[in-house]
């Protein structure tokens, strides 16, 4: 049975000092998904312009985060009003892809870095996908990377366990202050079931007139995949801790290699 740490408090901002391969990490809880997204898209990107990679894990109450294409639909406001009345605020994001649900049972994960030569859409996705998969493996599970059809916001870097998507990734390359900041972000479904998340997305799709709905069987959670309850069970805290630790470990390796 995989063990988790008894640590409930999460790591605060920490800098790995040394040389140009510095990176910082942070965990935050926001009162709204809009606030979390604003922090991720603005503050994180601004901070990364100094050349250091930034890593953020955050959590917020439930919301639907829509991508640029759906965010420009003429009936978005009407749909958003309906969803808000159902308890699902609708927030627009800048990174690509379609609608993605977040909740107190999901973790939002982001890496922000300068878009320097050698950084491509592919390498940036691989960096975050690799980190998340390493953490999932630490629970004795075997993740796969590849598109999961009929999941919400499907993409080539979907992370799944036993055929059910547990994480999706998207990216934004933002030109600001004369620099290109690459932010790769993910929603990782950690706790609880996934049905209510899929239902929220499908409700939104109904209101905007989409007909290709998500399938509940295409989406899962880390919790659902675990073979047995964990010792000292606070899965969200534990996953956050492992993500931050894995990031620190990867950053340390980079420091040593320089």
């Amino acid at each position, binding site marked *: 049975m995989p063990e988790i740490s008894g640590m409930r408090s999460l790591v605060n901002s920490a800098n790995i000092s040394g040389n140009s391969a510095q990176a910082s990490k942070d965990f935050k809880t926001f009162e709204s998904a809009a606030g979390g997204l604003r922090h991720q898209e603005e503050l994180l990107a601004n901070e990364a312009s100094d050349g250091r990679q930034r890593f953020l894990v955050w959590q917020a109450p439930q919301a639907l985060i829509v991508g640029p294409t759906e965010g420009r639909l003429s009936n978005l406001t009407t749909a958003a009003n309906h969803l808000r009345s159902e308890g699902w605020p609708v927030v627009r994001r800048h990174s*690509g892809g379609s609608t993605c649900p977040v909740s107190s049972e999901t973790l939002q994960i982001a890496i922000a870095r300068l878009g320097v030569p050698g950084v*491509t859409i*592919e390498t940036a996705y691989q960096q975050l996908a690799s980190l998340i998969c390493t953490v999932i493996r630490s629970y004795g599970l075997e993740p796969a990377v590849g598109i999961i059809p009929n999941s919400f916001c499907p993409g080539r870097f979907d992370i799944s366990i036993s055929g059910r998507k547990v994480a999706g990734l998207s990216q934004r*390359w933002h*030109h600001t202050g*004369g620099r*290109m900041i690459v932010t790769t972000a993910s929603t990782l479904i950690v706790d609880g079931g996934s049905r209510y998340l899929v239902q929220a997305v499908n409700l939104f799709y109904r209101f905007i007139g989409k007909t290709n709905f998500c399938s509940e069987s295409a989406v899962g959670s880390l919790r659902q995949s675990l073979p047995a309850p964990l010792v000292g069970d606070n899965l969200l805290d534990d996953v956050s801790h492992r993500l931050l630790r894995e990031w620190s470990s990867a950053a340390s390796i980079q420091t040593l290699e320089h």
Partner: protein
Amino acid sequence: MADIVIPNDLWDVAITPEGIVANWFYADGSDVPAGATVAEVMAEKSTFDIAVSKAGHLHVAVPKDGVVKPGTVIGRIDDA
């Protein structure tokens, strides 16, 4: 005159053959300042700002929703 080009190595066309121009932030024929983000390209669930280094007169070559790949010239900036 300067071409507005999608970076050559932005994504692997062997895996993702094409993207689209998701948005133009300035109208064809308008004057744009140096450093302005003039367009947004989308591929692989990624959005990519296209900025211009010099000020000038914008000419759009690939309209919104047009299909593009790395290396595509999507417009040009003529001297103001």
